[in-house]
């Protein structure tokens, strides 16, 4: 543990996030070149270097034993260091403080989820870090992009002066998964038909349809869907657009107006990087900051209007955000239409448009002419069948249901989770940690064989804390004020499984 990070902690600093490239700065004296991003940005270089040095050392050491998967986490007395190898040799490190007074209890996988999310969103908008480094070997492009992107992303976690990372209170949530709206077959067919007509007005583009903050349909593969879904719920859905936050949320929302003042002054710090050229400042200001808040607004025609400075993205100069497909490096315009609760996200392939961004106007007109009316009709059907923000609440249960195969999860609405006792959630957090470790073990043993696991814990306050993993599906549950017998707990799970999971978690013995 570096002395500097200890010092930072004593300053009331609870969080450090670092991105570095193992291949860079190999020569003595150039170590700073490794660092692509460091938060907090005003952290002394010495501290930065000491963290990177420690992590690099640990990685190099653990690779000797486990070349495929190096270090995952360092648990120190006062800090946790969570490792994530975002791209080969590009590491992201998150350091969080274990503070005793307010009982901050983290779960390592949940923290890694944050790193994964910010990286995959970054990749979606700006291509991979490798690609940016290849473009400008000096690293200035990657640094400036990472700087604006990650700071914007972190602003969502800002709670007053503090950074609030996902804690045990969020253990009935799963980052990086999609929450879906359950629709009847008839409506599903209606939606599918709508997708066809959307695709026909934009040369067979991919699309995503959300209702409120839930996914209705997608034509994208699961990982792209999950990324875009996160972005939508962060910035695009009616809920995300309206600054007022309701009690209901499947994802965390900004708890207060984000304090961007310190972010905008960060440029100066960043420019201290050694390879920073004189043009750095102008360069930064021209980077479209897709994660910045309040950059989208609803236009009169129903399309969301992006308000980003036009900037160079890849080889394109444009003001409409583009995203990059994970599979093939295709650049696509992000085109968003919204009517009441429904949000339609179209990914219009840049190559399919004859005259670039101007072609988008044509696509939009076609959409308004042929599809908008059907969107309205589908919206009506969806809102008629919509049970409200507590639609998926099951009384008596506090649950989280994850389908890993489809990257889909469903959980008790956040508002209902808050009724749980703190102890129950801490237990659940601990249990999830154990399950994460067990799953990791299974995966190392045999990645193709899926196993089953069931744990029921009698916690304080007459609570049952249950985890059940069955071949790709996971169920976590807290039953408070519950009968003391194990039979009661298993019965409750059985009932829930039959009623809401089509028997996926039913007892088989």
């Amino acid at each position, binding site marked *: 543990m570096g002395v500097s990070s200890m010092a930072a902690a004593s300053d009331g600093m609870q969080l450090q996030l670092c991105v570095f490239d193992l291949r860079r700065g190999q020569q003595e004296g150039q170590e700073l070149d490794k660092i692509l991003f460091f938060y907090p940005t005003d952290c002394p270089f010495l501290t930065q270097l000491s963290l990177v040095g420690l992590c690099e050392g640990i990685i190099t050491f653990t690779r000797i034993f486990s070349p495929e998967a190096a270090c995952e986490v360092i648990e120190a007395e006062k800090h946790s260091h969570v490792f994530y190898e975002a791209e080969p040799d590009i590491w992201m490190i998150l350091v969080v403080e274990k503070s005793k007074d307010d009982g901050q209890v983290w779960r390592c996988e949940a923290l890694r989820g944050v790193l994964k999310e910010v990286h995959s969103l970054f990749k979606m908008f700006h291509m991979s870090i490798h690609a940016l480094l290849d473009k400008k070997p000096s690293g200035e492009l990657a640094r400036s992009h990472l700087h604006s992107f990650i700071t914007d992303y972190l602003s969502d976690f800002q709670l007053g002066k503090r950074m609030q990372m996902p804690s045990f209170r969020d253990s009935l949530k799963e980052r990086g998964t999609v929450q879906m709206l359950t629709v009847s*077959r*008839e409506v599903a067919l209606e939606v599918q*038909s709508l997708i*066809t007509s959307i695709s026909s007005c934009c040369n067979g583009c991919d699309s995503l349809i959300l209702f409120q903050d839930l996914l209705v349909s997608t034509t994208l593969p699961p990982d792209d869907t999950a990324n875009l879904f996160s972005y939508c719920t962060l910035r695009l859905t009616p809920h995300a657009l309206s600054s007022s936050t309701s009690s209901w949320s499947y994802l965390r929302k900004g708890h207060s107006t984000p304090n961007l003042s310190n972010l905008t002054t960060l440029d100066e710090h960043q420019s201290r990087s050694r390879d920073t050229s004189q043009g750095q400042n102008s360069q930064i200001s021209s980077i479209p900051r897709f994660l910045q808040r309040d950059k989208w607004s609803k236009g009169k025609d129903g399309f969301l209007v992006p308000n980003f400075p036009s900037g160079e993205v890849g080889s394109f100069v444009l003001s409409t955000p583009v995203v990059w497909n994970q599979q093939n490096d295709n650049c696509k315009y992000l085109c968003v239409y919204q009517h009441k609760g429904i949000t339609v996200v179209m990914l219009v392939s840049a190559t399919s448009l004859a005259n670039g961004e101007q072609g988008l106007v044509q696509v939009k007109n076609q959409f308004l002419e042929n599809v908008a009316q059907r969107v309205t009709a589908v919206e009506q059907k969806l809102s008629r069948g919509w049970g409200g923000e507590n639609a998926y609440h099951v009384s008596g249960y506090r649950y989280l249901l994850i389908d890993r*195969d489809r990257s889909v999860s469903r959980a008790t609405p956040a508002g209902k989770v808050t009724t749980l006792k703190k102890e129950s959630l801490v237990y659940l957090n601990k249990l999830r940690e154990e399950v994460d470790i067990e799953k990791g073990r299974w995966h190392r043993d045999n990645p193709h064989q899926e196993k*089953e696991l069931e744990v029921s814990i009698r916690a304080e306050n007459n609570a049952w804390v249950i985890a059940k993993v069955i*071949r790709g599906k996971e169920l976590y549950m807290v039953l408070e004020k519950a009968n003391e017998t194990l039979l009661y707990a298993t019965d409750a799970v059985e009932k829930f499984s039959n009623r809401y999971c089509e028997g996926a978690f039913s007892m*088989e013995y």
Partner: protein
Amino acid sequence: MMQTRAGSSRSDALSHAYIQNPPIRCNIPETRGLFYDDGNKLLLSPTADQVLSWKVGVPSQHNPPNSDLIGEGPVLSIRYSLDQKAIAIQRSIHEVEFRNRETGLTFSRKCKQDLERILGFFWTDCPTCDIVLIKTSGIELLLYDPEQNSLHVVETKKLSVNWYVYTHESRMLLLASGMQCTVFSGYQFSAAAGIVRLPKFEMSMTKSEANSKPVLSSDDVHIVTVYGRIYCLQFDRVGMHLNVYRFYRDAVVEQGNIPAYSSRVAISTVDNVILSHQLDAKVVMLYDLFLDSLNPISAPLPLLLKGSSGSNSRSTSEVSDSISSAYEGMIYSDNWNFLVPDLICDVENGLVWKICLDVEAISASSSDVPSILQFLQCRRSDPAMIKALCLAITRTLILERRPISVIARAMDVLVASYSNFLRSGSTPPVTQNTGNDQSTDGSGVASEHAITGTANKSIIADSSSGVSMHSPSSSDDEVNPEESEKQVRDKSLQSSVSQQMASHGSSVAISPDEMYRFVFALVEDEMSGDPSYLISVIVEFLRSASREKLKMNPDIYLMMNQLLARSNQHTDIALFVSNKIIEPSKEVAMQLVGFGQQNYKIRKLGMDMLRQLSLHHDYVSVLLQDGYYLEALRYARKHKVITVQPALFLEAAMASNNALHLAAVMRFFSDFAPSFKTTLDYGRYQQVLSELS
């Protein structure tokens, strides 16, 4: 019966309607006129003392005329009773003679010579009376007693009548009165509902000048029965249009008008399509009132004469050809009489032609495919041919990759038609019924009430569209229309009306299964490349079908899965399965399991489906295949699956190289399968176990 393909020699000429060669020949010498008894579908031709009758709709070669003695005397009008036990003959404007066919006894009913004239009469199957006599002073409802050969007056209704129009098809009697003959009283004499009296109504006439008051002629009023609804088309000669009225039980509602391009207009209905013959212009216009649209189906085109197919009448084909070539110039000649609903009587030559529609030509003439399908689905004349045509059109639609919105509308039409067909109890909503009017009485009005609301009960028409006749009279208005038939020369009578024989038992409606086999499966073979278009098409079909709550055969889902898997759209498979667009079934589940070779997640979808469908045996088998033998064992015990061989569990346990597990499996079967210890497996694995330990 492929009339439309007949007469290929003329197929180059554009036409949507044609008359079919050979005609019925009624030109036997010494006959005095030709009458059409639409109640019995008989062509009647009186001679000096007898009447010859031909049943219409029977192939002419095997249809020698019957004859009945009717005695001497003039015949102004003649009709057989509906049970054919008696013949009524109007002898003069004051006398109708009734003749019992068995006994030959006759008696006459006469009216007061100076006060009234008999305008006509008809037999009816309404329960309260047998015959209705229309006089200038009103109508008389009479009961006929064949035993006594006598009449009893049931009721008389007094009103002044100028002329009347009646068709047996509609059972509607319209009585014209007033100075301009525009005030109408209407009665319907139906077997089911008895006598229904319509409210009095007035037809509108455009005035040419301020003072002139045109008088409406009976020629210009046509009762039209389509889709079991009754309409009246009134030709307004000054306004040059036809007013369309629809009859409801308690109202007569004007529907608008359709234009006329000729000073003489005749109306026919063929297969529920209204044909408006513009006699001067020698063209015919087609209207389909199914969706209450008064727009013509297609452009005005001439009526053609088409030869018969060779097989139909080999012996007369030569004669037919000569007639057809000679007859071509006679189309819409002045001596044509248009009989209700679809016959043309050439009085001069003693020929009766049947009008047919060329549905292929109609369907080829429009680019609006959904409307064409809608039109075709309403046709009843040749279900097999029309169904084949609809299937072919749908296939072409898909193969041409027309916009999905068009496909969606086409699917809606086809599915709605099929669901209509199902709802009407496996009978097409509008039945074409050749012989028996009563059997399907009112079957066609189910859809009526929805359109008209509950207040207006629609008048029920007999859904007969067999041959019946209202002959527009060329003589005075007072004369019974049937007297207007001119004398025709004696010739043999032939029937070309044969198509209606084939119309029973099949329907034009396309079932989901047929849709799959004759459309999707066929186009799949022909379509190459990206299957996403075809998937979208199928989704549209499923959407229509789900709206109508139709059951699907799993085949269509298997095909969808196949298409999705071929293009690696595994996300879509997962989505479609999870939101039940692809409905769960054993076939689908096993297919998904099979796809697992490429994608294990898809295999799991299939397994989940097996479990949800409680196909325990298959679920356990698949678990075993994947090596989840402990899970399989637990599941088997819980659901009491005893059909899976213990050997399979043992093999799977063996493969895992885990002696502990193998022993557990052994123990399980020893405990729960009593006969297990006696099997060879037991001994074998016992040995394996001992070697391992």
